């Protein structure tokens, strides 16, 4: 049986100031573990986008990081509005972010595409009115 490390972070939906904290903390842990730098950078990019999405679009949620010797899985779960059309949401530049959020520099519509680009596998499970769960997978052995 393989060992699994698990870390949990609350993603505070009420504050932009704390957005990104879970990915910074995760990065520290992965560095300590000796995870390859390129994987850390990818996780840092993808997880940050996921965290920001939870704050902007879903009033926050939970970030869970599972680490085994050969795989890292990041699960970002919220009980927000859900994504109506995933295919559309995945398009570069597509965004439903309101004007006030865009004024802050968010809402460029690059978050989901970048999460896909910066992960080995991305799985989106979403239901309108129920919430969204996104899994980001990283296979360490292929690196």
């Amino acid at each position, binding site marked *: 049986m393989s060992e699994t490390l698990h870390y949990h972070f609350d993603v505070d939906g009420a504050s932009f100031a704390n957005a*990104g904290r879970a990915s910074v903390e995760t*990065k520290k842990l992965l*560095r300590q573990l000796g995870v390859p*730098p390129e994987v850390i950078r990818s996780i840092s990019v993808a997880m940050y986008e996921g965290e920001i999405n939870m704050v902007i679009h879903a009033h926050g949620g939970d970030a869970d990081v599972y680490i085994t010797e050969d795989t890292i899985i990041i699960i970002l779960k919220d009980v927000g509005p859900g994504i109506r059309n995933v295919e559309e949401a995945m398009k570069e530049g597509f965004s439903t972010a309101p004007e006030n959020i865009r004024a802050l*520099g968010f809402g460029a519509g690059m978050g989901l595409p970048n999460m896909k680009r910066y992960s080995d596998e991305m799985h989106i499970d979403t239901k309108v009115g129920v919430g969204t769960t996104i899994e980001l997978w990283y296979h360490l052995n292929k690196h």
Partner: protein
Amino acid sequence: MAKYTHSVSIDPDKCTGCTTCLRRCPVEAIRIRNNKAVINPLSCIDCGECIRVCKHSAKHASYDKLTDLDYSKHLIALPAPSLFGQFNHMNEADYVIQGLLDMGFSEVYEVAKAAEYVTDLTRIYMNGRQSRDPVISSACPAVVRLIKLRYPTLCEQLVPVLTPYELAGKLAREKAMREHPELSPSDIKTVFISPCPAKVSWAKSVMEGQKVYVDYVTSMNDVYMELLSRMKHDEVPSPEAASEAGIVGLGWATTSGEAASLMNDGYLSADGIDNVIKVLDDLESGTVSDISFVELNACSPGCVGGVLAPTNGYVARVRLHNLRKTGGMVVKPNDIRDVDESIAAGNISDEYTEEEAFTYMPEGAPNMLAMMLAMKKAEALADKLPKKDCGACGSPTCRAFALDVVNGEAKLEDCKIRTEME
């Protein structure tokens, strides 16, 4: 890869084990063991923060003493730009140059002048660059080491140009060889006057096969004391020696000076090691947009705030500002133009590689699985600790303590305030 030689160290006779530095070290390199602070050389970045905060003067930096210099050699002083902000009632940089000559240096080559060349080289480099990721200044060695150890994927964004003092050493030596054919290369010694331990360490840690541009690194404090007694700016109306650096180069002494000198649209500058870390995290997650250049200084407000600089950095900044306003310095555009592509080719540094990336892995943790097991145990242990992060155990946080215990570097009994432990 040669060993990194640290400038920052601890005087065990003075250290009381008070935990101040323990909690302020930005990379958690310090532990208190047997009531004395010890620094982990693998993770220390020589930022000098622990020297700054120690109330018992137990932390110090090592460097070459002025008495170590061999004055029979052709000694070239390389004053850092920040030196010019150290003096009260001084409106001309020329007094500093004259003072250095009076101290016994054969020549002075201003690092500020080399900084102007670095600005130019950086501009050339940026113009020819394909990537849209911002480039990061490589001038602060504490920041460069932090990037190598903790943000290795950002290494490729570091400007691959020699730092101003290295370039100053190189150009000064070449100039002296040209002007003094009678001297053999070993007769010429370059002496950098440093505001910080980071630059001492950087200069002393020259990697194998790499050229040495700076022979000695002295402390700005020491030089300042010597200069004070020699600089007679009350009596001498105008010294013979003339400063050659312009406002562009002097500006490097304070934060934003380097970035502004590039005359580029989008730049970001930050100082103070904690702020630097925040910016690096953002750079790593790719959230910084519309920025082409990033200047990061471990000290606030820039090198004038280095721990080997005697004057309060904010006071020094005002003085530098006044120095420029009263016209002591003029821009010398022709000097800057001197730099052409051929010099550029010769002054590009290839040090910014990822070689050191994993030196923060604790010994005895040879692979990820072993480290995972250790961290899992540590996590379980940390859950039962008081979570006060008090530092009394000798580790900076309860979490760090837990891992230290698991790694056999600390004993559970070292935690004096644990309550519900079984």
